[in-house]
């Protein structure tokens, strides 16, 4: 079988909808409102998050896959969607009790969750869209 020795990047897109509030408990309400504006609304607001998971590696000579996309999809569903979809990130997840659920921090949490499940020989990066025009990437 012919094979490739170069790295190839593969991507999987997923979605989840969640409520959150940007809030620093070390600050009073006034300072939270001053710094975070309407994003700090105590009654929460929400987003349709779009997640793009990027995995980089040399395709396996036997399968031709960098990673089986069905496996990547299942890992993302188990680690991310089941925890975050239709949830309140501040109240319903263990990660943001004392960690502000900004897009930056959510991306770091998602990366750590996925990293633990994906072959260490493969590179991983996540891109998280909070809105169509606001998105973050980790690792940078």
């Amino acid at each position: 079988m012919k094979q490739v020795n170069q790295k190839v990047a593969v991507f999987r897109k997923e979605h989840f909808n969640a409520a959150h509030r940007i809030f620093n408990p070390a600050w009073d309400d006034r300072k939270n409102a001053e710094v975070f504006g309407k994003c700090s609304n105590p009654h929460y607001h929400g987003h349709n998050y779009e997640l793009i998971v990027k995995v980089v590696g040399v395709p396996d000579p036997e399968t031709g896959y960098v990673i089986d996309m069905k496996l990547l999809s299942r890992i993302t569903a188990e680690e991310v969607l089941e925890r975050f979809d239709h949830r309140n990130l501040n109240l319903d997840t263990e990660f943001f009790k004392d960690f502000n659920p900004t897009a930056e921090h959510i991306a770091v949490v998602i990366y750590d969750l996925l990293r633990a499940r994906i072959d260490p020989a493969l590179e991983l990066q996540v891109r998280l869209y909070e809105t169509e025009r606001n998105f973050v990437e980790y690792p940078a």
Partner: protein
Amino acid sequence: MVYLTRVEHFNAAHKLYNPQWSREKNDAVFGKCANENWHGHNYDLYVTIKGEPDHETGFLFDAKRLSAIIRDTVIEKLDHRNLNVEVDFLQGKMCSTENLAIGIWDQLQPHLPEGVRLHGIKLYETPRIFVEYFGEKKGG
């Protein structure tokens, strides 16, 4: 007759929960959308008006003025809010995308000048779920 559409966005938290029903029945009917701690969306709102272009300006209606009316009467009330808790025109109603579209129509309608008619509200809750409302009342 021409049609003019203005697109606006807002982000909000909500839940689908009928207080007349038990927790179990809400979970059975609305599933994860009934999460008591809310979830959220990036909503995309398409407002379409219709009429004849003015012979002096060539405009059906100044799109910037239409945008300002939508912002003042709708977006200000909805953006970064909790739809169930904070929105006056949804009080006592189920916060479905259907009811939200009807509510938006009712908010906008009185603010449009003579000669400009509201044609339709198209409201996206996610990129794959949207509703349309054309002002038709039951039996009408």
